[in-house]
């Protein structure tokens, strides 16, 4: 296997809140190979988005990285100063956010917003940037680029705005695209269009994508490898086929069970995961999922399960992984 494009080791992120410190990301390690698409799946509060924003220095003011490394192009992203990070953001790593309605500056023409990044990174001259912007608009499927260049965001539909956001993110041909719930705010038919666009772009540009999503359906159909997060920790990670065939963490299995798919089986019995995910106000010493886990044992309440490697690059953080796997198999 080739060298990873990005390698994250033991990342920790905390947030300072009025009621104490929230431990949002705890010892998260993962890597992504060039051209690979990784899906990071989890519910709100799982730390999936926080972990990736932390790498780019895009945490809210009350958040800070308290440990770990993130190797990218020979440098540790977490050790770079603001200037160096600004150079990498948008040029080597692009980001697409969830809400295209709020993500664009309402008083700036969309063409200018796309050009802005290229000019800032001295990626292109004014003239080149203008031409490239027109090309980009066409590439992301916006008809009549010269006219649309002059439009303001309020003149676009939600789907079209997300296309603009994508054009902005890929303008400088980054090697890595981080897509943070890029389709969550969109209608289902528009979601398909956006995913098709991202699919086309990654094939044509051989770009790595980290897809952050709460939707297992999106992750499993779009990604080569899945990372499941809960309570600021990675619960399970495996290449797609292994993940689909042998899901081994009780949380993953519960997530599969939570998919409200319109299947035609007659078994209508739903088995919800009980309880809710709570923010971690103390550094976790035990499995964060244990309180909601149907398989939890006394050990799970006291001892933190480590991420262990099984066959087929399958990593699981569960004391009872072996039992789950043998039962499923």
């Amino acid at each position, binding site marked *: 296997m080739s060298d990873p494009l990005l390698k994250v080791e033991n990342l920790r992120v905390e947030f300072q809140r009025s009621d104490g410190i929230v431990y949002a990301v705890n010892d998260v390690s993962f890597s992504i190979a060039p051209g690979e698409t990784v899906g990071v799946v989890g519910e709100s509060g799982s730390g999936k988005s926080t972990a990736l924003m932390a790498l780019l220095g895009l945490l809210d003011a009350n958040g800070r990285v308290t440990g770990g490394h993130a190797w990218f192009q020979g440098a540790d992203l977490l050790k770079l100063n603001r200037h160096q990070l*600004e150079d990498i953001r948008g040029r080597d790593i692009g980001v697409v*956010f969830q809400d295209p309605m709020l993500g664009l500056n309402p*008083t700036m023409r969309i063409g200018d917003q796309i050009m802005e990044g290229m000019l800032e990174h001295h990626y292109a001259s004014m003239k080149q940037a203008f031409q490239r912007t027109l090309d980009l608009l066409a590439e992301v499927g916006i008809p009549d680029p010269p006219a649309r260049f002059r439009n303001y965001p309020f003149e676009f539909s939600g789907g079209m705005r997300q296309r603009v956001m994508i054009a902005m993110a890929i303008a400088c041909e980054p090697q890595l695209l981080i897509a943070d719930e890029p389709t969550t705010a969109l209608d289902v038919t528009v979601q398909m269009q956006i995913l098709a666009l991202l699919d086309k772009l990654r094939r044509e540009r051989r770009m790595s994508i980290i897809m952050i999503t709460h939707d297992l359906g999106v992750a499993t159909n779009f990604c080569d490898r899945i990372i499941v997060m809960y309570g600021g920790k990675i619960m399970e990670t495996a290449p797609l086929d292994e993940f689909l065939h042998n899901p081994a963490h009780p949380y993953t299995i519960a997530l599969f069970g939570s998919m409200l798919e319109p299947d035609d089986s007659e078994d209508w019995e739903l088995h919800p995961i009980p309880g809710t995910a709570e923010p971690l106000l103390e550094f976790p010493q035990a499995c964060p999922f244990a309180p909601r886990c149907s398989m939890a044992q006394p050990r799970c309440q006291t001892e933190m399960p480590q991420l262990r490697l099984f066959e087929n690059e399958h990593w699981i953080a569960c004391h009872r992984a072996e039992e789950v796997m043998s039962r499923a198999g």
Partner: protein
Amino acid sequence: MNLALFIGKRLLTILITVVAILAISFIMMRFAPGGFFNSATIASGLGTLALQNPHLYQEYLQMFEKQYGLNQPLWRQTLTYVWHSLTFNFGTSFENPSVPIITQLKTALPISALLAGGSIVLALLIGIPLGVIAAVKRNTWIDSVLTTLSMTGQAIPSYVLGVIAVLLFGVWISGILPVNGWGTPADAVLPIVCLSAGNIGVITRYMRSSLVEGLRQEYIRTAEAKGIRYWHIIWRHGIRNSLTALITVVGPTFAFTVVGTVWVENIFSIPGLGTLLANAFTSDDIPLAITSVYILSLMVMLMNLIVDITYSLLDPRVKLR
């Protein structure tokens, strides 16, 4: 085209407003205790002249009766008055019947306009940078000092600042800046500073809150993710939007400033419209009082129109009504 229609509409609104104000003022003054607009009041207004030059006195009296149609029914009088005012045919004041009001306005108006305009420009020049600093350094001691200072500027009216300035520069450290009269550029310094304090406060605080709010928007994160430099983000995605929004507070600020001009002129004995207005009201010189109110209001409304037009040109989302 659209813009022309908008301006036309607004000018019409201003016209209607002005007519309403003139008519209401006239009628109210007409029925005020003592009934100003009758021969008797005018006679008393001209008081001393009756003794000094009875002939001229009679002449003036007839002139006023003709100007205001005092023998006609009220509605005719009102219409006549409104029409005269709209056509800038103000006649002469009671106190100073030999000088037409328009001549007095011609010297007074530029002074007031200079004070008001100068104070707004000064307030923008100081208020905007202070607001930006407070927003960028939000929740630090710099922010709280600036916020407290701007609150102070906002709270203390220009006439209090004015008398304090007179005390300061007239008694304690006299000789540096003049505190009385009008003529040299130095005379304008203290009035303009006192006038702008309130506006500096308003602008600083508005700029701060609008920029803090702006920097909290999602699109700031988008810009950060594009790798835009910090200060470029502050400028392009923060300050520019806030400046556009700032225009909306300049409108009310202008009304406030024009009133402040009246106060400050009186404190510093500056022969502007404000002093004219104050003298007119205190000496029951009704023609001059209404006229100065009319001119000052007109100034404010036209400024607001300009502000609205500018705003609509700057913010693409604003549709002209």
